[in-house]
């Protein structure tokens, strides 16, 4: 039996209501040639044939296993411990969502609770949610929190914040009275302090910085939180969470919200997703946090129990008055991040971060010796920096690909003024030999 039936009479009533006599009249504006097109679907295949086909198709992909990759720009290649994969593959855990009737799944809730606890420690802030879909969504939600919290209309964002994140925020704000306004960066890629301070006025709900920023620069945010607080605005920081292990945390910079991409915490690049949005705030913004939160409580017998908490403002309760339309999280990805942080431990995370810093710094100094390339980033970096090629970058990229090397991400598509510049990333996955091989290859370009 169909769940909802659609009788001929129903159809007639619908058509009558719209004001047309028949279905063909309803679709009259669609050209005849587009109606009822012939779809040529090949003959059905057997299972082994399908497997063969899919394997061949999959083989067309080029991954960082096949190429020596210096790609970054928001998606990073890191070593993932085998134990992590085992943990998240356990059938008790292997679900993408927080379960419905969540309290029945104490293990899942405990894992989320632990993920949250680890994220508060890593960011230096008080309250973490159970995660968002990805960094861009998370940052856009942070912008909404600032707008609602301050009842103001503008959000300032550094142009050195990931272009995709800015685009996502713009999409979120489309059709609302809210405005996203950018402030620029200087020649080295650090945010333009003067321009920022000029734009910080009484209408500014929130300010968004990224550190390390899109160009890899670890920003100097000294004095910013005081200025932003005095202005009554919310300070939002985004950035690679691994870097927080060795640089100042968002909490230490005085941020109200840390929101961004959690992929570096044990998630594979996997062509762009699924990833993980982290979202952590100060105590004061606790009740504005969108999405789910796992809490620790006691059951009727006084035993430790985990529950979802602070849900009163979520959309399944508050409907259109909810602060956000997000009502789920990336439970499996959050579990992966939780496992990654736990397996590495406090010291391990610090060491991985230090190796990233060392490898990238070594590579930067080697590239700076090349005559056809100029390093554009002189500031402190984490695992990424900007390079300008004296020859067209497209040519460099082409040669490199022939040698099975991804040299980095071209910047011109995002910043037209950064012609022939590219972003080079070196994580702990690159050995000294890898780095030297890359530099030799660049020399031959």
């Amino acid at each position, binding site marked *: 039996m169909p769940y909802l039936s659609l009788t001929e009479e129903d159809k007639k009533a619908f058509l009558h209501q719209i004001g047309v006599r028949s279905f063909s009249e309803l679709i009259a504006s669609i050209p005849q040639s587009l109606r009822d097109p012939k779809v040529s679907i090949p003959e059905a295949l057997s299972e082994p044939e399908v497997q063969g086909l899919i394997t061949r198709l999959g083989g067309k992909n080029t991954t960082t296993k096949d190429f020596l990759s210096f790609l970054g720009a928001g998606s990073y290649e890191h070593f993932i411990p085998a134990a992590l994969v085992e943990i998240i593959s356990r059938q008790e855990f292997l679900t993408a969502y927080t379960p419905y009737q969540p309290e029945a799944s104490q293990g899942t809730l405990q894992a989320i609770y632990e993920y949250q606890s680890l994220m508060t420690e890593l960011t230096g802030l008080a309250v973490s949610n159970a995660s968002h879909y990805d960094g861009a969504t998370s940052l856009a939600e942070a912008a909404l929190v600032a707008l609602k919290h301050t*009842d103001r209309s503008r959000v300032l964002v550094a142009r050195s914040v990931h272009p995709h994140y800015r685009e996502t925020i713009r999409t979120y704000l489309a059709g609302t009275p809210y405005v996203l306004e950018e402030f620029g960066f200087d020649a080295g890629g650090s945010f333009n302090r003067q321009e920022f301070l000029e734009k910080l006025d009484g209408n500014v709900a929130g300010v968004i910085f990224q550190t390390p920023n899109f160009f890899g620069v670890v920003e100097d945010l000294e004095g910013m939180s005081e200025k932003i607080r005095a202005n009554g605005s919310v300070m939002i920081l985004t950035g690679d969470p691994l870097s927080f292990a060795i640089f100042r945390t968002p909490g230490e910079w005085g941020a109200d919200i840390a929101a961004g991409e959690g992929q570096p915490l044990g998630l594979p690049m996997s062509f762009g997703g699924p990833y993980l949005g982290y979202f952590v705030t100060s105590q004061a913004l606790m009740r504005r946090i969108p999405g789910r939160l796992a809490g620790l409580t006691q059951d009727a017998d006084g035993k430790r129990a985990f529950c979802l908490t602070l849900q*009163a403002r979520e959309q399944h*309760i508050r409907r259109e*008055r909810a602060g956000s339309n997000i009502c789920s999280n990336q439970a499996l990805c959050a579990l992966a991040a939780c496992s990654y942080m736990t397996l590495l431990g406090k010291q391990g995370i610090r060491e991985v971060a230090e190796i990233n810093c060392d490898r990238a710094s070594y590579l930067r100094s080697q590239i700076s010796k090349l005559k056809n390339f100029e390093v554009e980033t002189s500031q402190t970096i984490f695992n990424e920096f900007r390079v300008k090629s004296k020859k067209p970058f497209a040519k460099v990229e082409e040669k490199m690909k022939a040698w099975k090397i991804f040299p980095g991400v071209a910047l011109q598509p995002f910043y037209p003024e950064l012609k022939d510049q590219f972003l080079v990333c070196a994580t702990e996955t690159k050995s000294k030999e890898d780095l030297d091989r890359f530099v030799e290859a660049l020399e031959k370009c």
Partner: protein
Amino acid sequence: MNFPENLRYTKTHEWIVAQGVKVKVGVTEYAQKEISDVVFVELPKKGLVVQQGKTAAVVESVKAAFDIYAPASGKVTDANTTLEGNPGLVNQSPYGDGWMFELELSNPAELNTLMTAQQYGEFIHQSAKH
């Protein structure tokens, strides 16, 4: 249930002091029982201009969040910030220390559109039957 005579009441269970230009607003004893344990109150900012029947505050319990509507139009001149640290006052003393905000009425005649204590008592009684 206690519905003081000096107040006027809305169908959405807010009360407002019936006399004066600057008057306090809160929720009724019936409302606080329905909401159950209040864990958070989001108060309006001073200076906010509110319209009768429009949202002015939000009260949150463990299970849900409820809009609190302005019983009359006016400007918010004060808010009970004690509730930020002690939201339970809404349950303990809905007509006293649990008040929410103070309104400077722009049209005091609007109070005539509200219910008296007796009318509100009957309204609750009728609602309970359904």
